[in-house]
Every structure is written in structure tokens, then in C-alpha cells.
């Protein structure tokens, strides 16, 4: 649905900052999250996990555990079938190892018992006979021909010579004559970079409550970004009809992409089926780190040529990502997004993906883009330094704009990159003085955004209030923005609308809350549903007035006669129309179902000042400003919140966060003490500047905003640190020991 023709419309509700509908529940402790539900007769489920990075499971003896008093069910891979779909089988294998444990923490068995203490005791009684196998956790090592093979039979087709069977995917994007492009350059820089795997780090561990009845009906309550996808995966794995499994999404305590799949839900369902009782599973933080999430780790080579006056003549990147023990296509997004911010005549990106003995990658906010753009923006910054050019001017000179053929194929429509760069340039932050050991860095960021399958229904109550039923878990205030768009379109106060997130049997399929899609796609469907309800209201009023339906129009919450020819009637409000709807044909509703496209890509620019302590290697973020195009900010507070939260996750990634594996292939830091996410005292305020360049694909111009903000911080901070130290950094995180090491090698 395209941008409304009246693009200059004056909004009344959209753009304001009303209180969110779930606010009181969340500040009083009443909101029900994944771990907060109970059921009569509920058992506690616990999972036994591999203590080895890679091992063949020769046998599992569960007899002693089963004999323990209070134990009601024990399951292993034998209790699951073999789904036909390879990607579903991968999900199932990740939930319960079949013949090999593929990483430290991989589930091998599970118990349901009458108490947590008994369940834990039972886990100790399960005897697993392992044959330990050689392992690999580093992406470059995993691609070498003599690397331990993580899973056989998963290599890409036409695997080139000299590469391990672990290599599962290869992607190439680009256009133009690379040789000619590099020949035109005055300066060419070629560098290699590495980034560590990081975890989404949601504060709420995964939790679910499953109940399977003997008649084949099931109920599942869980914290998820997508109850419909959970239902599909679980119904496939449990070999039951989707209609028989009702999945309810609890309030969700953060996801960032990490709650778009299942880890414990099929296990809880299997335990419930076997025991005949409801089963609850709540992960510990150790389990969350070892067996869910993280993002990919990467190794990247970038080569860029530039003229003396700052025009990029050619750009090349080779990206190698590992996404754990199962095939993972995330490198495709990296290869597509690496150079998206630039208008280039010659560009090529090559992506490789490899298996390692690590947990299965889960999406993390703009999956694949931050590490690719980190490498690219680092080289652009070094070129600016070498050629003595202003880094913002260089970005402006090469910026993609409407009509640019993007590095990954499509031609851009209206985009806000140049406006965002101009805003950064004009901002006082860019001109502020810097002290000793301080540096300023910047980076562009990009994300595709997504629309997808969406279903919304809107019901008018007899008292003139409006209920909206949608199917996307509210992860950061979306119920408020959906209500705002409904109120705007209907012309009624925000307080008259209540939006709820429905279970899988109460509304049609909605794609997962991902791809920054909810405010865009659910918003679009809500506006359409409202227009349908308005049409029906006008029809009813036309009947009452006994005139043609198209002689009635809707304005500011009232049905009005469209002109003198239509006759003279007092406008009728939504409230009046709803109140008599039983007499005019029954309840009034609107609904809309769509597979939305036109999401509109999103660009941002981040500006950061840091100070590096040369004695300790510690970096302090002094000042941070985020500039981003939101298309149209429906609820600006929550748009700013996305910009701030994403920036801070990126700050953690740049400076501290990493999965650390020992020689033994075991994760060494599976706790929030040793995997250190940013805390309040690490940070300054995060300033935000929202730009609004309307997305042509949405009636109000909305673009998704959730993912782009995690993209720029990696390079922005690396560029700032590199300038502060006068020493280029090539690896993330730039934790104090790494900075000290780099400093000691400085001559």
C-alpha cells in the first residue's frame, strides 16, 4: 500500500508520545513473562547437555533416572521422529542431539519430574557413553581441507578444491569492472578483520509451559518473537496438525532475533506427551549462553580503491562467517549489505559460510550486516586518513541515493542516507573539540527491513471503543504504535483503542516479529483494516440517511454527507454509529490480510567520541549521537529507544562482548559476569536525531527502525579508537588486553 497521496497530512495522534497500554502491568510486576505461568499438575523439565565440543553418542542409559521416584518422563532423540524438511530436522537436532553432540551444551536428554530438585538429580543418573571427536570452533580453521568435519554430507554443491566439507554456502554479489575500477584509484587499501560471536543477551532466559492431551490437542505458552512460527516448527517436529497446537506468546523479555526459533519448546511438548502432565522448562543463563543464540563470528578481507578527492573507484570484500554446527545463510546478508551505503561503479562481495562446533546461530538484530559493514567502514576511514579527507565528506560524495543501483542488485527508491549524513555534519557534536587520547569515529549503517505476512482485525464495540487483534509479540512498545495508527485513521482518541497480541488460534498467520517489520507491516494492515471499517460505517450511515454510500465520507471520526447534493445531515460519530450497529446490520469490523512488501530500506549514521587509557587499555565512550531515517516516527520515544538500545548493544560488541572458547572447545564465559554486557555506568547519554524521509511503501511513510542501529557502532567505535591511538584496529572486541597488545606492538 503506497504512501498516501496527501503526503503532507497533518497527524493528530501519530508522532505523539502516549503511555503504552502494557505500561502499568510492566511497572507493577503483573505482566506475565515466559517463566511466570503455571498449570495444574505441572512438572519441571530439565535438560542434560553435552560436556564435550564434539562427540559421538554411543549409547544413553536412562533406566536409573526413570526409576527415580518423582520422575515422570525421560526423553532422548529416540522420542522424536524424522521430519522431511531438512531445516526443520536441523532445528529438531539442535533441540536434541541424534547421533553426535555437536557443541558444548548440545542437549542429549531431558527429564520431567515433580520438582526441580528431583529433575536435576535424575539428570545425574543418565549415563551417556561418548566417543570424543576432534573439534573446530574458528571459522578460518573450519574452512581448511584438513579440519575436523562437523557434519558430513552438508557441504555446498561444487565445493571448490582446497576447502573443507564444512563449507556449506557461497554467495556473490556485485557489478562493474573491478580491474578498471582499481586502476583508476590513487590509493588502494586492503585489510583483514575479525569479529567475535556475541549473544543477543536478552535478560529473560527462554521459558515455556507445554501441555499435550491424550486426544492430540496441545497448548504451549512461551516467550517468543513469533508464536506462529513456533507452532509450525513444533507441529512439524511433533507430527501433529497445526490447528491442534495453540501457541500463546507470553510477554517477552527481550529477543533481538534470538527468540525467532525454538530450543526447549519441542522438548517440553515431548515430555508432556510422554508424562501426560503439563511441563515447564526454564533455561538457566548458562544454558542460554551455551545453547541458544549467538550471532556468527567473522573473518573478512576488504579492498577499496579511492581517488585523491575521495571518490571510491572499486570495492571488494570476502566474508567468511561461521554460524555453528548447522548450515547458516547469514553471510548472504553480510555480502549484500557490506557496500549498501555507497554508489559504486565496480563492486564485488563474496561470502562463505562454514560449520563449526558451536551453538546454532540465531538471528541477532540486522543479522550479518554489522560485521561486514565494520570491515568496510574501517577501510573507508583509513583511506580518509591516508588521503587527508574529511570522513563525512567522503561518505557524502559516495552516498547511495534514489536511483543508485545498490551493490546487491535492486535500485534504491527514496532513501534517507544523504539527509542523515548532512544532519551529522551540521550537528555540534561533529565540530566539538577533542582532548588527548581521544578520538572521534563515525560509520554508516544499513538494513533491508522486511514486511511479510500480516493479519489484523479490528472490532468496534457498542460503546464506541475499538479492539485490535494482531499476532506479533510486542517487543518494545508496538501495541502503542498500532493503537496510535488506528486512532489516527479512525479519528478517535488513542485511549479508545486497545490492541492485543493474539494466540495462534485467534487470528491468521503473522510472520515473526523480526526484520523491523511490525510497525511497518502491522501498522499498514491496521490502517487498511480501519479503512475497511470506515467503509462499512459509511454504508450504514448512508442507509440511515437513505442516500448513496459514496455520498458519505469519513473525516475526523465522523461520517458526513459529501456535499450539498447529498443532502443536509448532522455528522454521525463512530460512537453513535457503533451504538446502533445492532439495528443497522450487526457488529462492525474491519480486517486486513497481506504479504506486505515495500518495507523501505533504512540508513543511519553514528558519531562517537572515545577516550582510551594507554595505561589500562580501557576505552570510555564520551559522547554518542545516532542519526537515523525513520520514515515517519509513530511513537518517537520508542523510535529513540530502538536507536539507543541498538547503539549500546553495538558498543558492547565493539568493546567487550565475545564468546571465548578454550582449546578444549568449551565455552569459557557462559555467565553475565564473564560475558560482560554494557552496564549503566559504562555509558554516556545516547543522543538521537530522527529524520523523516517517508517510505513510499507505507501510507504514513513508516520505515522499520529496530535493526539498523546495531550496525554502525562497531566501525564507529573502532574508527574512534584507531584515531585516538593513532593505530588501526582490526579485531573486535577491542577489550583492554587487546588494546594493550596492539599498543605494545606500536613502534
Amino acid at each position: 500500500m503506497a504512501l498516501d497521496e496527501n503526503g503532507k497530512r497533518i497527524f493528530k495522534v501519530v508522532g505523539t508520545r502516549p503511555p503504552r497500554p502494557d505500561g502499568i502491568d510492566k511497572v507493577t510486576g503483573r505482566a506475565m513473562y515466559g517463566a511466570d505461568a503455571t498449570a495444574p499438575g505441572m512438572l519441571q523439565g530439565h535438560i542434560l547437555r553435552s560436556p564435550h565440543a564434539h562427540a559421538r553418542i554411543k549409547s544413553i542409559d536412562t533406566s536409573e533416572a526413570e526409576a527415580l521416584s518423582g520422575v515422570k518422563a525421560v526423553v532422548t532423540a529416540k522420542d522424536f521422529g524424522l521430519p522431511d524438511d531438512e531445516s526443520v530436522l536441523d532445528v529438531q537436532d539442535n533441540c536434541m542431539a541424534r547421533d553426535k553432540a555437536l557443541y558444548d551444551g548440545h542437549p542429549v536428554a531431558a527429564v520431567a519430574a515433580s520438582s526441580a530438585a528431583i529433575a536435576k538429580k535424575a539428570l545425574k543418573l543418565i549415563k551417556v557413553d561418548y566417543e570424543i571427536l576432534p573439534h573446530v570452533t574458528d571459522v578460518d580453521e573450519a574452512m581448511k581441507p584438513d579440519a575436523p568435519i562437523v557434519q558430513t554430507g552438508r557441504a555446498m554443491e561444487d565445493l571448490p578444491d582446497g576447502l573443507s566439507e564444512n563449507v556449506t554456502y557461497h554467495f556473490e554479489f556485485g557489478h562493474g569492472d573491478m580491474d578498471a575500477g582499481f586502476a583508476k584509484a590513487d590509493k588502494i587499501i586492503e585489510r583483514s578483520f575479525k569479529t567475535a560471536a556475541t549473544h543477543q543477551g536478552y535478560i529473560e532466559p527462554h521459558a515455556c509451559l507445554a501441555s499435550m492431551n491424550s486426544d492430540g490437542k496441545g497448548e504451549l505458552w512461551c516467550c517468543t518473537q513469533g508464536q506462529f512460527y513456533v507452532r509450525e516448527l513444533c507441529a512439524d517436529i511433533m507430527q501433529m496438525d497445526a490447528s491442534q497446537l495453540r501457541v500463546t506468546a507470553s510477554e517477552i523479555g527481550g529477543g533481538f532475533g534470538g527468540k525467532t526459533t525454538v530450543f526447549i519448546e519441542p522438548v517440553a511438548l515431548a515430555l508432556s506427551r510422554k508424562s501426560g502432565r503439563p511441563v515447564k522448562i526454564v533455561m538457566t543463563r548458562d544454558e542460554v549462553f551455551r545453547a541458544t543464540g549467538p550471532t556468527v563470528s567473522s573473518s573478512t578481507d576488504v579492498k577499496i580503491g579511492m581517488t585523491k578527492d575521495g571518490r571510491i573507484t572499486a570495492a571488494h570484500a570476502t566474508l567468511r562467517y561461521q554460524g555453528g554446527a548447522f548450515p547458516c545463510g547469514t553471510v548472504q546478508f553480510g555480502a549484500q549489505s557490506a557496500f549498501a551505503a555507497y554508489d559504486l561503479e565496480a563492486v564485488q562481495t563474496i561470502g562463505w559460510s562454514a560449520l563449526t562446533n558451536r551453538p546454532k546461530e540465531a538471528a541477532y538484530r540486522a543479522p550479518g550486516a554489522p560485521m561486514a559493514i565494520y570491515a568496510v567502514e574501517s577501510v573507508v576511514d583509513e583511506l580518509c586518513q591516508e588521503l587527508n579527507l574529511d570522513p563525512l565528506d567522503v561518505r557524502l560524495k559516495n552516498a547511495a541515493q534514489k536511483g543508485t543501483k545498490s551493490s546487491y542488485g535492486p535500485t534504491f527508491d527514496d532513501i534517507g542516507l544523504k539527509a542523515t549524513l548532512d544532519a551529522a555534519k551540521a550537528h555540534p557534536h561533529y565540530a566539538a573539540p577533542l582532548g588527548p587520547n581521544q578520538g572521534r569515529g563515525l560509520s554508516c549503517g544499513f538494513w533491508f527491513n522486511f514486511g511479510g505476512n500480516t493479519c489484523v482485525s479490528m472490532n468496534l464495540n457498542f460503546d464506541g471503543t475499538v479492539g485490535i487483534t494482531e499476532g506479533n509479540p510486542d517487543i518494545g512498545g508496538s501495541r502503542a504504535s498500532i493503537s496510535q495508527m488506528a486512532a489516527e485513521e479512525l479519528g478517535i482518541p488513542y485511549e479508545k483503542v486497545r490492541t492485543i497480541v493474539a494466540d495462534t488460534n485467534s487470528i491468521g498467520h503473522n510472520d515473526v516479529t523480526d526484520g523491523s517489520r511490525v510497525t511497518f507491516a502491522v501498522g499498514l494492515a491496521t490502517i487498511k483494516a480501519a479503512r475497511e471499517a470506515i467503509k462499512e460505517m459509511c454504508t450504514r450511515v448512508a442507509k440511515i440517511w437513505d442516500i448513496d454510500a459514496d455520498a458519505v465520507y469519513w473525516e475526523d471520526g465522523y461520517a458526513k454527507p459529501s456535499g450539498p447534493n447529498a443532502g443536509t445531515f448532522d455528522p454521525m460519530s463512530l460512537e453513535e454509529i457503533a451504538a446502533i450497529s445492532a439495528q443497522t446490520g450487526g457488529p462492525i469490523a474491519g480486517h486486513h490480510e497481506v504479504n506486505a512488501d515495500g518495507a523501505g530500506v533504512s540508513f543511519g549514521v553514528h558519531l562517537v567520541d572515545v577516550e582510551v587509557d594507554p595505561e589500562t587499555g580501557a576505552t570510555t565512550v564520551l559522547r554518542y549521537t545516532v542519526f537515523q531515517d525513520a520514515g515517519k516516527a509513530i511513537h518517537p520515544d520508542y523510535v529513540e529507544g530502538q536507536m539507543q538500545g541498538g547503539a549500546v548493544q553495538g558498543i558492547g560488541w565493539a568493546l567487550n562482548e565475545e564468546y571465548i572458547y578454550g582449546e578444549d572447545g568449551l565455552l569459557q564465559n557462559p555467565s553475565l559476569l564473564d560475558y560482560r554486557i554494557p552496564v549503566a555506568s559504562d555509558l554516556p547519554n545516547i543522543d538521537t536525531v530522527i529524520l523523516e524521509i517517508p517510505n513510499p511503501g507505507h501510507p504514513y511513510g513508516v520505515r522499520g527502525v529496530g535493526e539498523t542501529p546495531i550496525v554502525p557502532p562497531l566501525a564507529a567505535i573502532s574508527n574512534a579508537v584507531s584515531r585516538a591511538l593513532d593505530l588501526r584496529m582490526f579485531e573486535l572486541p577491542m577489550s583492554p588486553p587487546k588494546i594493550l597488545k596492539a599498543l605494545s606492538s606500536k613502534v
Partner: protein
Amino acid sequence: MKNIHVSTTINGDPTEFICNPDESLLDVLRNRLGLTGAKEGCGTGDCGACSVTVNGRLVCSCLVLGVEAEAAEVETIEGMANGEKLHPLQQHFIDGAALQCGVCTPGILVAAKALLEKNPNPTDTEVRYWLAGNLCRCTGYDKIIKAVQSAAAEMRGA
């Protein structure tokens, strides 16, 4: 292990429960008393989602034993509002959009209330250091610090 009987006061109400000697106060609150407002983000004292006060002292309830509540005054998020009337911190968190997913919010509110009782007029840096034990992954803390400061100002009558 035999269960132990405990008499305590929670949010002003006399309360009795039995628990295992090794059971955390957080587990008692959540699993035995139905007070699920305190959250378990880690169980190891690293996230602050389980923050409550015991005899006025801010603690991670995952690191306190249930039996330690004997004869103590425990305050949880469920006791922060006065009936219908939200505490100023609660109101300012809603008004200032200081929560996104909200799972850190109960712990942060309890911790912030404890701060303002000790120091009604903290600097931003003092707020940031006081809340350093309360992890929030969604907000980047910016709006949390601002909401605490605007609630503090209101409570001072400023």
C-alpha cells in the same frame, strides 16, 4: 532435606511459608508465594532482575536464602504502588518510555527506589553507578536514567 517454616512480612503483610534450607528467596517469592514480579535473569547475582529489599537493604533475591526472610521485612515490586496510585518512579518510567521489554523494570524500580531513599538528589553519575548491577539490554539506559531523575525531582517537590 527437611523443609523449614518461615514467618516474615512481605510488602507489609504477615506471611508464612515453608521452604528447603537451600532454596533462594527468589524461588520462594516466585514459586511458593506467586510473587512473580521479581525475575530471574541469571540466578548468580549478575543482572539485578531479582532485586528486592530485605529490612530496607537492596539485595539480589537470587543470592538470599528463603530462610533468611525469617522475622524480616521484605519489599518487592508488587508492593511499590499504593493501591491504585503508582509510585512516582513507576509513573515516570511509563511516561518517559524507560522500558521496552520491561523484564528488567521491576528490579530497576526497586533498586532506584532504594537509591532515592538514601540519596534524594543524585547526580546522573550516581544513578548510573547505583544501577550498574541492574542490566537492561533494550534501552541503552538513557531513558531509565532520565526517568529516575524526573521521579526524584517530583519526589523532592521540585
